[in-house]
């Protein structure tokens, strides 16, 4: 079958040396190769954003990359956010703002929000909506998600019902 390729990749702070198939995408590698099932797969077409991870600090759709491309890179997934059982601020904000329902898209939004926070940019709500439009949620209508990200980026703004 496929010839395997050896890669060295840092995932959530741990260095992994793995043999990977050239036809395996990164989301499958994380889920099947490393058992990090918090990264979800929704379309494998780069549209839905369920598989969004941080690659060297940038939010990327991991279904659009092949595992060999990870060689020498640094990856963070949703499993990296909470420390010692304590939710990270971005996770707390989603919880307090009712930013999730079924939770399948949540890792994608959390990683997108983390990248936005780390970018240090200041965004208004419309800009937040644009930035989040790479991840689709079919449950919430986005209001709770936008409120959560607004809180993470701009401080305690949750509770703004009418954004006009």
């Amino acid at each position, binding site marked *: *079958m496929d010839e395997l390729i050896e890669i060295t990749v840092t995932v959530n702070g741990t260095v992994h040396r793995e043999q990977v198939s050239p*036809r395996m995408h990164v989301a499958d590698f994380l*889920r*099947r190769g490393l058992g*990090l*099932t*918090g*990264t*979800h*797969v*929704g*379309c*494998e*077409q780069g*549209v*839905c954003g*369920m598989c969004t991870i941080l690659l060297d600090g940038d939010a990327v759709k991991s279904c659009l990359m092949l595992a060999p491309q990870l060689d020498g890179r640094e990856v963070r*997934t*949703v*499993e990296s*956010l*909470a420390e010692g059982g304590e*939710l990270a601020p971005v*996770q707390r904000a*989603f*919880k*307090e703002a*009712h930013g*999730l*329902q*079924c*939770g*399948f*898209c*949540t*890792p994608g939004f*959390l990683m997108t929000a983390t990248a936005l926070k780390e970018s240090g940019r200041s965004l208004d709500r*419309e800009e*937040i*909506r*644009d930035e*989040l*439009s*790479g*991840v*689709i*949620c*079919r*449950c*919430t*209508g*986005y*209001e*709770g*998600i*936008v409120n959560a990200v607004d809180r993470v980026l701009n401080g305690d703004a949750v509770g703004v*019902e*009418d*954004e*006009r």
Partner: protein
Amino acid sequence: MSGSVATERRTGVLGSSVPRKEDDRLLQGDGRFTDDVEPARSLHMAVGRCPFPRARIESIDVEAAAAMPGVHQVLTGVDIVARTEPIGVLRPVPGAVQLPFYALAEEFCVFEGQPVVSVVADSRQIAEDAVEAIWIDYEPLAHVTDTLAALEPDAPVIHPDRMESNLLASNPQHRGDAEAVLRDADVVVGDSFQIGRVAPLPMEPRAVVAEWRPGARELTAHVATQVPHLVRMQLAESLRLDEGEVRVITGDVGGGFGLKLGLYPEELLACRHAMDLRRAVKWVEDRLEHFRASTHARESVHEFRIGADADGTFVAMTDLYTTDLGGQNSGFGSAQLSSIVFTGPYRVEDGAVERRVAVTNKTPVGAYRGYGQPEVNLARETLIDRLARRLGRDPYELRLQNLLGADELPWRNAAGALYDSGDYAQCLRMVAEAIDYERLRAAGRGPGEDGRYRGVGFTCFVERTGYASAKFLANRGSRYGAHESVTLRANRSGGIDLYTGVSTFGQSNETAFAQICAEVHGIDFDAIRVHAGDTGATPLNTGAFASRTLIAGSGAVREAAQELRDKTLRIAAGQLSVEVEDLEVVDGAVVSRTDPDKRVTLADLHRAAIIGQGLPADEQPGLEATAHFEPTDAAYAYGSAAAVVAVDAETGEFEIERFVLAHDSGRIVNPGAVEGQVRGALAQGFGAALTEELRYEPQSGQLVNGTMLDYFVPTASDLPAVELLHTEVPSPVTPFGVRGVGETGTIPPGAAIANAICDALAEYGVEISSLPITPELVWRAIRKAGNGGESREG
């Protein structure tokens, strides 16, 4: 059932936005969705599908595929027909011939995407490669994809062995003599409304992991479903097993919306393979498969008429509508609720409604949030606005004139639905006030300084939530009941384990059930652990659909919590030598109200009960309660919406400047969860109203936009701002006065937006009669209106 709840509002947890039980695991990537389950040495399945809308299979050659390294088994329709029973329909169409369907097509295929072969291999990649290596000779047959064309005499009959035409069934209901009333009415408005076909599109595709241990005769199927106990029944039937040999586990489910209702072919196939191979078999639907093999929804044509007196009083309504079933049945089939709410919240004595079901060569249609209610709402509410224009009346005033008053409820509508309670006009007044309707009317429709016209659109609706008893369902042939159940089991840590067959797919059911349990029992919310969706652990129930979970489930939780609490207090009374009436549950202990020093912890009481030591002489060991609860009637939620829309009369482009919804879901258990449900359903309503439509090309019969790139689901930047208002009128027919809430938001967007656009362009005489409403549709409507009603298309 137990009597009044003396403990109401004792903990304050009922009615508050407590953080959800579901959140911590989902936020940390520790949800357990079906694809996260992978038993050791699992095999993987791929499915080969028919590429034609209708075809006869002439031959299948699996030899090359079966010989490929890593391939374990190939199944075709011949195998499946011999070795399984057809998949059972949960909600049959009343009066329809049976259209049993097998997991794989035997000779005839009736839609693009229908499963034809399945392959199990060491990996999904190998299985997919093997599917490609299977040679299938198809003879394409004449097909029909258009709903109404399928009913024409010259249409090819899709199931000629069982049907004489493509009309599966026709279900009329009426009260009075609507035709006679319409003949005598001063004014009658009517039109034909086309509702587009859409995809419910949960973000988690369907998935199954099946394991079979022949010596134990135990099939364990992890299935992403809303109804684990019903899937268990269907698997047992189709695989010729006893129900006791089948266990279905859902884990976390990544959205359902009606799509994950009942057994699908692929789930049965994975189980069949697992039983043959004695190995775990996994299948996860990819998104291309999802668009073709998971149920679609909504597509229908409504011929709606309203008759009124010259003073605007509605005198009759009729709706002859045709739903599109697709090529074959699904668990639930096409929408059935347009009939039950066709007259809406209005005072209409005479009415007639008839639902027809057409078979077409498209993907089967199933349940989807709203299930007919958004569809009929568009027809009725746009006609009310046209009636207002015909009579020179204000559409807001015309609605107020005809809405049922609070003192007229309960009211039985022309389809037999019993509206329980509510103040319909209050919601309409609230939205009119919120948008300052008087000021908007005074300002005129424009064009404004930006060159655009501004219009206001209203819509009023009722929504059936829950079911009226199993007896009602039995009359319609449904294979499920109307009840919910729960088991509460005390544990030695002083907590309660709550077991429910309602699987968790975003409805916040774990949180709501725990809130009710805490409220009735007195135990801390945090000390309740919810275990959902495992048929091996939970009492037999119905499942989560039809906005019925809380209506039925709240009663079950209440009764079980009351029973558990009563026994706990009796044991404590014995230990503390006080009267039961003197005791209450506070902070994880049972405490005397009169002498707070007399207390015993729940952990101690639970241990005593579980071990059976230190109990009053007449008490049995154990501390566990199971309750089943069936509501007596459905509860009708209701609401009104107003949209303010700015329209460019040159291009047809429009912008929703405001959208206000006032709704009533009865007594609210968790306001945050309710708001989330309403906003989420609204987003789906906006999608279906504005951008979402599955399109088939009639000549080839192919689905032309079945990918995430081509099917436009609203993103965070696509939705208008929504303002929500609530009233809280308790329902008299449900525990705690709750009404269902999951589907409300899907109903109003289409009608409110259509009415606002037509109001803005009133001077052009524009009419909208279909969904989705795209700028192109508006542009064409303007051209048509400007041309005396004749369409003039290039």
